Structures are given as structure tokens and as C-alpha cells.
């Protein structure tokens, strides 16, 4: 069952404080968070979060098309090392 719209998106409170602090400092820091359940808000765009996956903090660079998703979606708890084959990586 989906969350009622009238409640608004769920975000852990400490996350907004951390994001505000990082944005005001202007430094290129990773914001380490544990809150995989929080929704990605528009004010997080452009920031890099380190989202804990139970072992380590995986970097998540927030872009516009990630708004509305949860942080945990971008930090999987299991890792599969496949063959590189002809796969390409693009530097943003």
C-alpha cells in the first residue's frame, strides 16, 4: 500500500540538517548517512551522500531524476562482480 499523499514525503530530520551544513560549508564532502528509508528531496540535488549498506558508505550523487526515490535504492546490500566485457563507464 502506498503512503498517503497528505502526509508528505518521509525524511529523517537529521538528514536535512546535515545537508544544510554541507551545502553552507561549500566543501566537496561526502555526507555519510544511515537513513536508507528517507525520500530524496529537491534540496538534495547536487550533493553527494554516502549511504550505508551495512558494511560501507556507498557514494550517491543526487540528480534531479532521483527525486522521490529512497536513498536505499542506490546503495545495494549485495554486490555482484560480473565480467567487465565491453561495458563502458561514463565520467560525469
Amino acid at each position, binding site marked *: 500500500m502506498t503512503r498517503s*499523499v497528505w502526509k508528505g514525503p518521509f*525524511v*529523517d530530520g537529521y538528514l536535512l540538517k546535515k545537508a544544510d551544513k554541507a551545502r553552507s560549508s561549500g566543501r566537496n564532502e561526502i555526507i555519510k548517512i544511515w537513513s536508507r528509508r528517507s525520500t530524496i528531496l529537491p534540496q538534495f540535488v547536487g550533493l553527494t551522500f554516502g549511504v550505508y549498506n551495512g558494511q560501507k558508505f556507498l557514494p550517491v*550523487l543526487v540528480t534531479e531524476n*532521483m527525486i522521490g526515490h529512497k536513498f536505499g535504492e542506490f546503495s545495494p546490500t549485495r*554486490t555482484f562482480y560480473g565480467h*567487465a*566485457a565491453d561495458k563502458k*563507464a561514463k565520467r*560525469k
Partner: protein
Amino acid sequence: MSSRIVVAQIVGAHGVHGRVKLKSFTGEPEAVFAYGPLTDASGARSFALRKTGTGKDHFLAEVEGVRSKEAADALRGTLLHVERDRLPEPEDEDEFYHADLIGLPVETTDGTAFGTVKAIFDFGAGDVLEIDHVSAKTVHLPFTKAEVPVVDVKGGRVVVNPPPNLFAPAGPPPSEEELAGEIEVEIDDGEPGDGR
């Protein structure tokens, strides 16, 4: 940078006429048939493939010179390689083959050794470099121009500009108070109790 790259694996025989099941590892699965004859790990044996069908998570293919189930069974588990030279060069200067990046030494902007590229992942938030750090830790860096300003595949090096707090402790976990209430976020539509 390895000159021979694994692109597929023969996972078993299909039928009694020597056809094989083929698992493709390429970004676009069907591209495995576009690279021409593939070789085994040593490069001694060549495999000319022809696609004959598609399975649930594999292709069915004919291998030139293989006409019996026994011969196809003997190929089970064979990893099929392609020469790196046969892959087309990336069109964008900021695009790199994973195979080119994996294993490259990494240094910081001031020339200090940082580690070695272990893997590249894309979990949906852009590409992430997994680096074996010189301290034996594994670190992850977003594959951006800010964090990875120089990628010199021919020169065999990657230069990174790691965030200052990369190895800093994450700080205390949020307190009970901080986790007690969720933040009210203003949204444009929706009134409490309007049933939407």
C-alpha cells in the same frame, strides 16, 4: 590492461546436433555475435558462432566444427574472449571501457599512491569506482570530473581528488531525539484528511 577480454561463456549443450547455450556478458547481449570469431583463454582455439535462438537468460548458438552433443558438452564452461583491439573506441572522451580501467594504479592530485581500480559499478546514481586503497581498505568514489580529474588509459594511471572526509569516522549515529519525528516537508497539494 588485458589484451583479451571475456565476453561470453558456453554453459552447456542444447539438443543432440551440437548446438550450445551461450551466456553473454556484454552490455548489449546480442553484441557478442558482432565481434566475429571468439577465442578461448589461451587464444589457441577459435570459435565461430552463429545465433540460432534465444533462451530465458541465454542464447542458443552453433559453433563451427561442433556437430555432436558430446562435442558440445566438452565445451561446457569455456570462457570466450575477444581481443581488446576488436572493441570499437568509445565515442565520447569521458567514456571508458571497464576492462581498460580495472587494474590501473590510482594516485592523488599531489602524486601520492592511492591504490588500484578494482571494479566499476552503476547502482543507479552514476558510475562508482571501487578502489583497493594502499591501506588495504576498499573505498568507493563517484566517477565524476571533480573526484576523478584525470583518466590516462594509455599512460596507465588514474588521478583522484578524494573528498577530505573519505576516511573520517561517520560521526555519531543519530540520537533517539533526532530519529523521533519525521520532518514536515511542504508540498504543493494535498490537505490533511482530504482522502487523497
